């Protein structure tokens, strides 16, 4: 028998002790990780590991074990230690196991992985706390195959295996998060402290989540429901040295039996971030940085969440209300690629003020989720409303033919460069039923979007979008080892773009002056049928997955109707109203082996696009609509992509473990103007080597860990205009943490030292790469989390 691994720790020393080891499982005998097992009336407690195991060293005597897990009834077990080791199984009963959602949640991530034919990663709040980055996507970057497209320290967009923007869907509590269609340099409006469990699907996930999910999906699950008769919460405190960030997130929940509320408030305030250089070169012009601070990159963020609902065994209805707000500056010395003169005295006076250029984003969301369980049916209905409101502020500069002095007759504020106002109404209804060995899921989802624009600059016209989709998915359990999956989906969408005329006069070829019409009213309908088939074969220690499917994406308003100058990138972006819906065929595989010491997953994929949509920088300049700028035109080309990830974990002994995560991606355009080139923002190959020490006893504290990540990133020489080749680099990140017992509550302390050696490096997928802005320097992150409980119902 291989030694049990355990993250146990208890304080105090015993003279003559015996091992008490055990396994925590749910109703279905799936192991439960991270569950607290407490010795009643003492300060000793253990936390179950990823295989659900825990252990104590106890002297002879009578004890009582109390096990608490979110979503489960607390269990008390009396044990007697009498001269020999004891082994026990603690089987927890979920308090509403009749409802489907809880069944899924109660299954360990491991089981979920074995029943999904696509490659998935599941992370929990403890991963977020250990690896806390500037934004949720930044935090997820540690996972193989996940990267971000970032701008500054607080904004980033997900990139799954090199696909991002509208090819990755973000689902928040069952509803697609909307707010990404406008610009590439916008972050994702999600509060990472409110995320308890996130499932990342690598590969086309179109059938369940609708068009767009060609590259994958990031599914942020609804927080676990509070236990009946509970009243508690938690407090998080966060601090970061690099950008002087301080923040807090406080949660408070209460549940009687059927009614509950759950609220959270998050606030973060950060200053300009620092880079490991004191001089930057914007082209050849030297820009000095005051004490290494990147001017005007400070920001503020607030997140307010309120959830409430009514729960019974067979019926529940839940309301999720949230509002996230952020205000942040853009680096002042270059806006996009445009060099900007800066009043250094004004900008360097404070590292915390937000001057121009800056952006302000508010995202409001209201979601209702109702679940009804009847016989072998599980009906679910989600209704959502979202309002995304984004404003970009900048000094008025008369680019192109804009008048030298901003006219006083204008209704648009002088510093409002762009404004996007998006309202989205969405619904999703599904029925999941069990028919013998089949788990059948059928659903329908629809969305109406209304998008308005404002500001003195123009890129994309206002638009309305309607879409409706239907799908059916069958999971067939052939036997204990083999699962087959089949899915089909039909979508219909309509896009209406609206007229836009310039507010200023441009000089025409004949020398006359006119207000240019940049967009005319325009309507297009799209429809599509997609499918997916897959299998899981789980045998002993081996888990094999295969999936092949077709997915599609309708062109977004920007791709069809852009007709404006992006002065900050010296580009004139020109949409193409005749674009076809993008189609993709992808094959995904995965082989996993898991023993008590070894765990290895290899997940290759192959992807083919007959008509990938991309923004093609041409050799032409347009001096009429484009005011002399280079023409960037939306075009379609045949693309192949392949690559994969490897994850290997080895457990040396109880305390030491090691992990290697590696990823590789290759993309090539097979036709069109950029034949032979890659796709923009292709992440270079990288590998992460980790060594973790989790001592059983350390100065009387439990759950301690010390973990060192060493990431090597290869150079990226595979580029496409307007990118630049990026040199390789290696980085060290260090994480440590422990749980302290403060009175009756555990206080989780996590410390991270990011970029340990203050390495100066460029990130190929950063927006600032084009002006060679190095990434954030050394950063010490401290995060504290303490759950508290007002009720003592046991």
């Amino acid at each position, binding site marked *: 028998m291989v030694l049990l691994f355990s993250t146990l720790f208890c304080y105090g020393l015993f003279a003559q002790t015996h091992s008490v080891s055990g396994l925590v499982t749910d109703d279905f005998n799936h192991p439960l990780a991270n569950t607290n097992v407490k010795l009643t009336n003492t300060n000793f407690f253990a936390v179950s590991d990823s295989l659900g195991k825990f252990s104590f060293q106890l002297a002879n005597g009578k004890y009582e074990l109390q096990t608490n897990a979110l979503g489960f009834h607390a269990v008390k077990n009396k044990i007697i230690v009498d001269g020999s080791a004891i082994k026990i199984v603690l089987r927890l009963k979920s308090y509403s196991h009749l409802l489907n959602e809880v069944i899924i949640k109660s299954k360990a991530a491991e089981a979920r992985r074995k029943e999904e034919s696509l490659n998935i990663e599941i992370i929990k709040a403890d991963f977020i706390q250990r690896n806390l980055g500037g934004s949720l996507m930044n935090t997820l970057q540690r996972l193989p195959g996940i990267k971000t497209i970032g701008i500054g320290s607080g904004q980033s967009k997900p990139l799954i295996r090199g696909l991002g923007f509208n090819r990755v869907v973000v689902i928040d509590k069952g509803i697609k998060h909307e707010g990404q269609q406008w610009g590439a340099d916008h972050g994702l409006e999600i509060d990472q402290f409110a995320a308890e469990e996130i499932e990342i699907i690598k590969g086309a996930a179109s059938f369940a989540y609708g068009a767009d999910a060609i590259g994958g999906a990031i599914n942020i699950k609804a927080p676990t429901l509070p236990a009946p008769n509970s009243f508690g919460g938690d407090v998080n405190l966060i601090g970061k040295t690099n950008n002087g960030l301080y923040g807090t997130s406080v949660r408070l929940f209460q549940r009687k039996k059927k009614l509950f509320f759950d609220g959270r408030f998050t606030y973060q305030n950060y200053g300009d971030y620092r880079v490991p250089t004191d001089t930057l070169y914007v082209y050849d012009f030297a820009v000095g940085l005051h004490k290494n601070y990147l001017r005007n990159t400070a920001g503020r963020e607030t997140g307010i969440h309120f959830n409430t609902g009514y729960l019974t065994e067979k019926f529940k209805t839940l309301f999720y209300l949230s509002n996230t707000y952020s205000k942040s500056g853009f680096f002042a010395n270059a806006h996009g690629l445009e060099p900007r003169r800066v009043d250094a005295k004004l900008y360097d006076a404070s590292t915390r003020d937000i001057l121009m250029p800056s952006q302000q984003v508010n995202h409001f969301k209201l979601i209702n989720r109702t679940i009804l369980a009847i016989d072998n049916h599980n009906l679910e209905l989600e209704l959502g409303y979202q309002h995304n409101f984004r404003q970009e502020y900048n000094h008025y500069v*008369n680019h192109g033919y804009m008048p030298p*002095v901003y006219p006083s007759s204008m209704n648009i504020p002088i510093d409002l460069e762009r404004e996007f106002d998006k309202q989205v109404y969405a619904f999703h209804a599904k029925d999941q039923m069990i028919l013998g060995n089949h788990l059948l899921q059928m659903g329908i989802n629809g969305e109406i979007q209304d998008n308005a624009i404002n500001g003195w600059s123009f890129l994309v016209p206002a638009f309305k979008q309607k879409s409706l989709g239907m799908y059916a998915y069958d999971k067939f359990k052939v036997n204990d080892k083999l699962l087959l999956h089949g899915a089909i989906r039909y979508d219909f969408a309509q896009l209406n773009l609206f007229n836009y005329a310039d507010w200023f006069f441009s000089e025409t070829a004949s020398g006359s002056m006119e207000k240019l019409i940049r967009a005319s009213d325009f309507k297009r309908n799209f429809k599509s049928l997609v499918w997916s088939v897959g299998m899981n074969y789980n045998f002993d220690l081996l888990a094999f997955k295969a999936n092949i499917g077709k997915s599609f994406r309708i062109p977004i308003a920007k791709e069809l109707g852009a007709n404006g100058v992006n002065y900050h990138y010296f580009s004139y972006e020109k949409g193409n109203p005749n674009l076809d819906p993008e189609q993709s065929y992808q094959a995904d595989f995965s082989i996993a082996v898991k023993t008590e010491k070894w765990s290895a997953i290899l997940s290759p994929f192959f992807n083919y696009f007959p008509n990938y949509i991309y923004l093609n920088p041409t050799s032409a300049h347009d001096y009429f609509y484009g*005011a002399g700028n280079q023409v960037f035109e939306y075009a379609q080309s045949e693309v192949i992509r392949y690559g994969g990830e490897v994850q290997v974990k080895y457990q040396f002994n109880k305390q030491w473990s090691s992990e290697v995560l590696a990823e590789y991606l*290759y993309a*090539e355009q097979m036709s069109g103007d950029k034949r032979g080139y890659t796709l923009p923002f292709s992440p270079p190959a990288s590998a992460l080597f980790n060594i973790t020490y989790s001592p059983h006893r350390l100065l009387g504290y439990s759950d301690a860990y010390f973990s060192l990540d060493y990431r090597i990133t290869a150079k990226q020489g595979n580029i496409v205009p*307007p990118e630049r080749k990026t040199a390789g680099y290696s980085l060290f990140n260090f994480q440590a943490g422990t749980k302290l017992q403060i009175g009756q509550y555990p206080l989780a302390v996590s410390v991270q030292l990011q970029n340990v050696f203050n390495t100066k490096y460029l990130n190929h997928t950063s927006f600032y790469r084009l002006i060679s802005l190095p990434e954030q320097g050394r950063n010490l992150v401290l995060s504290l989390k303490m759950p508290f409980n007002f009720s003592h119902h046991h």
Partner: protein
Amino acid sequence: MRKQQLTFLFLTFILALSACKKEGEEIDTEYPTIDVTGTAFPQQCDVIKRGEKFIFRAKLSDNIALGSVSIDVHHNFDHHSHSTEVNECNLSAVKQPAKPFLLIKDFPLPTGEKTYEVAQEVTVPADVDPGDYHFLIRLTDKTGWQTLKGLSIKIN
């Protein structure tokens, strides 16, 4: 047995990958260049007279083939931006524009040429505002790589 299967699967995967990796044709990853030294005009901090003509001259080159060139002369009375060059020029005080000179023009380049010396006559009207200006040159090559030169000049 299981181990052998795994090794086999892994090798198949590697083989599949290497089969895809064909002999790639050379792709162009070089930016075109704008040479504003020697006989080029204007150069950083040069002064242009109102009501006179000047010849815009620059040496353009690329490793494969040039695309197109465009110039943009606009005022910098508000000091909104700086040049792309190493040297700073002395700027006059910030002022409100009344009738600033504005020129946005692109010039055709002969197709397929690797080097070209552009020489284009530009007239500066006599009634425009004198002061600090930017002379922005944008050059693309056939592939779509763009190089910028943002020069600080004065119009007197």
